[in-house]
């Protein structure tokens, strides 16, 4: 019994470590544009992101997790509880190590892809190459290309649209008052849709496309009409201008990204931990395990800790470096990222918000909306995206073999 408790405690530590990494590494995705555009201060961003990550993890995060993330390896390998336990440990440790390494080396990587890679490594080590679902892996590879390109296109079009319909107009402020409710409703539509489809909470409702569209449309129409009135009432031309309107909209989109991030990413840290937890408690595990709410809270707090402790360093740089990203640009980036994540996940592609955000920034840059963007960095970023899966897999194989040797 005592030994099992040690296993569990070790699992908790690793799970927390992984969640911490997610917070430290991914907070830039959601809050970067808002802080860069000076819509909110650094302190506010950390506070909001921390709270929303916890809320997202606990209330929207999945209560049932696939033991094998994204079904990338066949289920048979999990039949042996011993293999499953060692596998969960090695996957968690390998993914956490890779993300830590990335954080230390300042590489932007996807935590989802890290855990997918680690799972592949465990699958290969436990059952050989035949257990890998190569089709699913192909989808991961496709997402490297699809999500940035898609986000780039959307943010480009969105920014050109804002320029054409608002900024270049003679009375830009009045145009903004007129057009912004439509943009809000479009953004809200995307947001509600992604809540219904992308978040685990929405998936439990299991709505059809038509119903979901109808719900999203009605919510979007109501709230945006309300927002339109509020903007008219509170945003003054002299004091705030066009950017003032978009500043308010952008805070909303950033918050959404933070919330969705908590909801989606908590499973990366908590999924393997849940497997360990159930193996220790019940001695067996299927392809799906329920996740107790305190584990979700645990993961959410871990992410929030990561945001508070290390996220500030990232955002500090953002505050000084992305000052050229003002509110209209920031909105375009957020909008593109959220839309890409929704649509891609609707097609079942494991996309990463990081990839979409990078694509979004480039899109606005190509629309000549940012003072200066460095395209060269892209090749570096792409290299690390591609490296993530094999690196996590190899680490996972090594750790699995070591742990197997010891126990």
């Amino acid at each position, binding site marked *: 019994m005592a030994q099992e408790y040690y296993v569990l405690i070790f699992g908790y530590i690793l799970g927390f470590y992984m969640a911490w990494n997610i917070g430290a590494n991914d907070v830039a995705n959601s809050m970067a544009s808002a802080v860069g555009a000076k819509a909110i201060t650094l302190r506010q961003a950390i506070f909001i992101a921390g709270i929303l990550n916890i809320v997202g993890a606990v209330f929207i995060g999945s209560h049932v997790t696939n033991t094998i993330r994204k079904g990338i390896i066949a289920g048979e390998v999990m039949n042996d509880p011993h293999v499953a336990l060692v596998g969960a440990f090695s996957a968690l440790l390998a993914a956490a190590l890779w993300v830590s390494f990335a954080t230390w080396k*300042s590489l*932007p990587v996807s935590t989802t892809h890290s855990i997918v890679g680690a799972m592949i490594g465990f699958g290969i080590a436990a059952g050989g190459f035949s257990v890998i679902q190569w089709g699913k892996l192909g989808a991961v590879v496709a997402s490297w290309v699809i999500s940035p390109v898609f986000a780039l296109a959307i943010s480009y079009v969105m920014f050109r649209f804002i320029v054409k319909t608002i900024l270049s107009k003679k009375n830009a402020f009045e145009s903004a008052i007129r057009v912004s409710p439509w943009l809000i409703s479009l953004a809200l539509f995307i947001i509600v849709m992604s809540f219904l489809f992308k978040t685990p909470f929405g998936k439990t409702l299991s709505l059809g496309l038509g119903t979901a569209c109808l719900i999203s449309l009605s919510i979007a129409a109501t709230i945006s009409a309300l927002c339109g009135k509020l903007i008219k009432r509170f945003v003054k031309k002299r004091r705030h201008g066009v950017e003032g309107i978009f500043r308010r909209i952008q805070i909303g989109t950033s918050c959404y990204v933070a919330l969705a991030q908590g909801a989606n990413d908590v499973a990366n840290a908590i999924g393997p931990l849940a497997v360990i937890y159930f193996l220790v408690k019940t001695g067996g595990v299927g392809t799906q395990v329920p996740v107790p709410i305190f584990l979700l809270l645990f993961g959410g707090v871990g992410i929030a800790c990561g945001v508070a402790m290390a996220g500030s360093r990232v955002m500090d740089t953002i505050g000084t470096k992305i000052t050229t990203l003002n509110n209209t640009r920031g909105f375009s980036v957020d909008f593109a990222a959220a839309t890409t994540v929704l649509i891609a996940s609707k097609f079942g592609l494991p996309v990463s918000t990081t990839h979409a955000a990078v694509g979004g*920034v480039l899109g606005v840059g190509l629309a000549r909306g940012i003072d200066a963007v460095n395209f060269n960095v892209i090749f570096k970023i792409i290299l690390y995206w591609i490296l993530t899966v094999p690196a996590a897999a190899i680490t996972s194989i090594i750790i699995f073999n070591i742990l197997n040797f010891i126990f």
Partner: protein
Amino acid sequence: MRMPFLSLFMTSPFDGMQEHAEKVKECTCSFKQAIKCYATNDNANLELLKKEIIDMEGQADKIKRRVREHIPKGAIMPVDKFQLFRYLKEQDNVIDAVEHSLKWMSYRDGKDFPPELQDNLIQLVDSVIEVIEELPGMIFETRKYFKTFSNDQRRVAKNIIRGIRAKEHMADIEEDQLKQNAFALQIDPTTLFHCIKLAEIIGSIADHAENAADMTRAMLAR
């Protein structure tokens, strides 16, 4: 942490351009004093002011190089990279020409300068300085246009450019006047040559400023 994402964003080259324009404008004050010293034959002060301007020219050069060397190959900006470089080059030529004119003056003693032309010289310098002083405002408004893309803002920037052209034209007239008056005087050829060349160098300051304005106009083109 996550720096590659952040390093997508570079320091804006417009910051450097603005700084450079301010530096160019800064030299106008010393330039005017130097001309007065020359006309009044105050050689000690002229030497001091010349040093000051050479110093400023060095600083402006550093800013120019800093901007140019920190734009990587894959940079995406609202304006073409080479347009930006050409602009900087012309703006730098302004301060180079100021320095050149001071050096040219110092080749001959101030007392050899015909007193009849002193007023012309001061008027020419005044009209040239008026052109230079528009540069920081022009780049400021241009930058604002790239932030807002508003047509009104574009018009503001274009108006400044139009103003620079008009002022450059005035400087041309002053330059012609000085040359004409110099030929009208019966002075020795060396003095005449020195005066004509001086007028041309000072006139070229305004030409370079106008070129910079034309570059800006090209950036503003849709």
